[in-house]
């Protein structure tokens, strides 16, 4: 397909600017002006619409296909949230308005959305307070790690090491390192959870804290979670809960009750806001009482008279991490979702997410190697090791064959502690029929691996392109049409 720039026709225009009725009164001196126009496309409105509509048809989304991408919680995104977020009362609001005198009174609705969402997330997680500002999950992690650093600085603790299990998301060690910490990796035991003995060996006075995802990236709940938190607290360490997988336990159990000091949530996962092809997301961070004073500024507070305002006066705050109050419209969509589900609805989310994952686990374990037995939570992780050994078929071949059967593949090659990993997260919004169809497709592929492995290696054949040459992409490095 042609690039938009290649469709350009000299002299063609779509955009017509409103006639400018003012007289130009100052001419910027020529040395400060650009020499030539930026070479943007020259197209009609129809050209542009058709180009991007055609591009959209070269995509899978949750609305078009089952999307069991492990660790990403690709659930249905309610349309009503999109509609409400487009209301002009929200979409046209200038973020500097509440920073003007009396301007806050003109943004009471928006401030209430932020305040209420904070309150709801407190109850959902058992934490004492949230910042809604982090603009994505990893941004929340970094915010959490800066809060951890601020706590230790404030207490005069000289601690440099953060412990992270080897099954963690890649963002965990990256966020800890970005905040200035050293990272020590803790191995996973034979049951698929962080090895308690290795953790005990690693805990010492240099340990600033632990980052943990629970359930972890194998979809397993660590039964020693309380003991782990106690162990870290015994050296005045801070426990950090990566809430990427909260979908598994929402309404059933709360990280605050487990003993975690810091929690980040991904509103674009558990709370059904769209992933947007890779953002925008939102990664609010919750803390317990002892860390409240370090949360970023500003904070939305409720006054005695019931109105809302922004509070900046927090001397121990880590400071400003975002220009304003977070990805407001993402927060708004999550707020709508929580209001619509209520307590019972959210509990049913966890139940059906876990049921769907275990159903897949049970039905496929005859066909694919299941490295860690036992009940899983929101996702199950298989390995293609059997297919590799017997027929030379890799996880990636299975993934590509699934595409031809109309499914988005699971996450493959992650977590890296499982060879040829296939991480399947169905989510609660999918029906038994869809999941049965997926299971059947996986079984057919397992059979094809034996009978016609070459066919799998040639997949996908139904997509706009076949497998691309990624090595050439990195070698030739064509990243912009200039």
């Amino acid at each position: 397909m042609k690039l938009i720039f290649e469709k350009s026709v000299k002299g063609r225009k779509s955009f017509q600017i409103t006639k400018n009725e003012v007289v130009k009164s100052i001419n910027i001196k020529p040395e400060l002006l650009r020499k030539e126009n930026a070479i943007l496309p020259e197209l009609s409105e129809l050209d542009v619409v058709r180009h991007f509509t055609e591009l959209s048809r070269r995509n899978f989304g949750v609305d078009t296909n089952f999307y069991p991408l492990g660790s990403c919680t690709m659930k249905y995104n309610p349309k009503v949230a999109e509609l409400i977020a487009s209301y002009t009362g929200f979409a046209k609001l200038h973020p500097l308005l509440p920073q003007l005198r009396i301007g806050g009174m003109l943004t009471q609705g928006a401030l209430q959305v932020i305040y209420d969402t904070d309150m709801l997330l407190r109850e959902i997680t058992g934490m004492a307070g949230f910042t809604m500002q982090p603009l994505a999950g990893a941004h929340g992690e970094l915010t959490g790690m800066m809060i951890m650093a601020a706590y230790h600085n404030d207490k005069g603790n000289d601690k440099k090491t953060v412990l992270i299990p080897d099954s963690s998301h890649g963002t965990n060690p990256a966020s800890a390192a970005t905040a200035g910490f050293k990272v020590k990796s803790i191995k996973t035991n034979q049951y698929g959870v962080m090895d308690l003995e290795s953790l005990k060996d690693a805990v010492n006075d240099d340990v600033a804290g632990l980052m943990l995802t629970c359930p972890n990236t194998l979809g397993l709940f660590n039964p020693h979670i309380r003991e782990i938190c106690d162990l870290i607290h015994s050296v005045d360490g801070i426990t950090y809960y990566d809430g990427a997988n909260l979908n598994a336990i929402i309404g059933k159990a709360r990280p605050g009750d487990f003993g975690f000091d810091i929690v980040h949530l991904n509103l674009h996962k558990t709370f059904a806001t769209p992933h947007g092809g890779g953002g925008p997301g939102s990664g609010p961070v919750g803390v317990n009482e002892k860390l409240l004073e370090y949360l970023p500024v500003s904070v939305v507070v409720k006054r005695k008279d019931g109105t809302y305002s922004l509070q900046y006066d927090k001397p121990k705050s880590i400071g400003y991490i975002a220009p304003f109050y977070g990805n407001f419209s993402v927060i708004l969509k999550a707020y709508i979702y929580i209001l619509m589900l209520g307590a019972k609805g959210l509990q049913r989310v966890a139940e059906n997410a876990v049921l769907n994952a275990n159903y897949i686990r049970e039905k496929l374990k005859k066909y694919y190697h299941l490295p860690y037995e036992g009940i899983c939570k929101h996702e199950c992780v298989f390995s293609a090791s059997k297919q590799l050994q017997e027929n030379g078929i890799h996880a990636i071949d299975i993934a590509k064959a699934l595409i031809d059967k109309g499914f988005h593949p699971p996450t493959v090659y992650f977590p890296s502690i499982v060879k040829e990993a296939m991480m399947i997260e169905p989510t609660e919004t999918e029906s038994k029929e869809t999941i049965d169809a997926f299971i059947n497709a996986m079984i057919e592929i397992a059979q094809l691996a034996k009978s016609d492995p070459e066919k799998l290696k040639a997949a996908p054949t139904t997509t706009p392109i076949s497998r691309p040459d990624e090595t050439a992409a990195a070698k030739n490095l064509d990243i912009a049409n200039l």
Partner: protein
Amino acid sequence: MPFISNTPQQQKQMLAEIGLSMDELFGDIPKELMAKSFELKEGLSEQQVRNQLTELASKNSIGLTCFLGGGFYDHFIPAVVQAIVSRSEFYTAYTPYQPELSQGTLQSIYEYQSAICRLTDMEAANASLYDGGTAIYEAIMMALRITKRNKVIIDNSVNPIYRVMVDTYTRNLKIELQQTENKEGLANREQILEKLDEETGAVILQNPNFFGCIDDFTDIAQAAHEKGALLILSCYPISLGILKTPGDMGADIVTGEGQSLGMPLCFGGPYIGFMASRKKFVRKMPGRIAGQTKDQNGKRAFVLTLQPREQHVRRAKATSNICSNEALCALSAIVYLSLLGKQGLKETAQCCADKASYAYQRLTKIPNVKPHFKTNWFFNEFVLDLPSEAPEVIARLIERGLAAGFPLSRYYKGMENSMLICVTEQRTKQEIGILAENLESVL
């Protein structure tokens, strides 16, 4: 309304087939760890939630005529932008890890990267960062990786909202932040040259700067390069319709807030940070990058490339921890830029500048209202000095339906009476007239 598809019967059937009860499915969570409390209200229907949120939306005033800018602008957004980003093939997809079924997202990112390069006159751009502020922070980290130094110079004409963010992010990292004080509204060359030495990794500047003033940083780029330092330039993409490009000035890394490219103000987000650089620095760049390649049949194809820089591969040694970025906002930006096109972007930028200069002429005719910086060129924002404290004057104008500007005392000492005024192409001659009349009458 939980959006769950399985019926209670299906749920039972599935449990029976796997031989477990619902309680057993959660049996791996120790009993003492089950939720101590979960007090939320009953779920609402779509009708209820729409009524409730319509009421909340009505508590936000959008009727004000907007002369507020400060890096976040009320530009016109053609309907096509919303129509395209509302296609759920785009918005319900995730990061394009599987290129065969993500060519739509990948090609749009590649086209976005290309447009950002063409706009800034640079050679490489990434798929996006969170916002203009985190983009400056990421650019600093990138520059320090490239130069292997730990000192940066930032002029206080750079957006103060971004400067306080940079402060937060660099606090624990042994990075020396040196601030220079603007001179007459422009970057302070004397102080910058004085501080610039062999330990300086980067100089950070903005054009047009926070006061709206336009500069040419060619001289500072040269001076920085002589000392082995890089120039990081934050810019306002609409202004690049007419202003001298960062590439032309010799900037090494260019960042900015892309909200003005087709994104609504939306009370602060989602917005988009863009980043572009010289091609030789691309392997040190943070974030996703889409690249062009060929498929097995020689057909044009797009993939995420240079992934070994990223957190999911390099973990603690990654160039950044960023994962989700602002892909859908990048789509808004490329659709917006494609629609406006070569001529439309220039006309929009010119219209902003013309209307701002008209407003400047009109407002400075009011007795006792004076330009704060007399000699500078500006794009679509300028600073006026009022005869009394600006926050109070602005409050009085809000009561008259005008968001007249931003009081600079919040960030700059000695500017208690100063107000930053922004005029986009959306403002009319009549609205500017109303602002002038009301300002005169409240003083």
